[in-house]
């Protein structure tokens, strides 16, 4: 899952080397924190969060084998 977020984020931004991802396993969920360069924020969020929503949809599919929910936060 972590890897999927990383591949997608790096493919979308202008500064792929500034993409960093942190995954924390919690009791009922995985929390994936995605950090990108400030000028790339728009490229992973999109108008009205359309891109962020698409990333979440794809990662959710990647996580169907997991029993836990996946939460992606862009920070």
């Amino acid at each position, binding site marked *: 899952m972590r*890897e999927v977020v990383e*591949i*997608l984020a790096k*493919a979308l931004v202008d500064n792929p080397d500034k993409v960093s991802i942190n995954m924390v396993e919690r009791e009922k969920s995985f929390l994936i924190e995605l950090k990108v360069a400030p000028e790339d924020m728009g*490229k992973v969020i999109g108008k009205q969060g359309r*891109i962020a929503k698409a990333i979440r949809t*794809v990662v959710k*599919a*990647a996580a*169907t084998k997991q029993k836990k929910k996946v939460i992606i936060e862009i920070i």
Partner: protein
Amino acid sequence: MQAIEKTAKTVQEAVKQALNELGIEREEADIEVVEEPSKGLFGILGVKPARVRVVIKNTIGLRAKQILGNVLGAMDIAAEVKVHEENENVHINLEGSDLGVLIGRRGETLDALQYLVSLSVNKNQEHRKKIFLDIEGYRKRREETLQKLAIKLADKARQRGRNVVLEPMNSLERRIIHTALQGRDDIATFSEGEEPYRKIIIAPKKY
């Protein structure tokens, strides 16, 4: 852009090795012969191997193939990615078993993936290309289902003399319904509401 150089006895052999290593087909590569092979004198003096440089062609379709390959790999999904580029359109079809997870509910995941691939390959490009992603002919099947549904609901609207409201759909799916019913003069179709909850209404025409 990925490139490698290979040496072998013949040019063909060197090219074959390079393509194998990059995992691409002949038509997906630009090939440059750096050094022609030489058999030398009596096969002893001045024997030189062939040296070629193989570069992966940097087209939008091939970039899309690469990104999808990476994403599928990270998801542990085995699928063959087939790319067909024509003019402004890039058609990508994924083939494999058990790809339902990539389609998602009503093609939700498929649409998300198509959107992300399209954004990333068209990033900073002067000429954008439209990406059409499909899985095992899902879109075609969905189109047929929607066309049948449209006809059924149009008949229902006429028989009952009342509006029939469909569930929310994206613009492509709404278009399929509108198109399927545009030839009918007993009903009219229009859309109402805001994205992403915009939905079609089929209204009977009163005489």
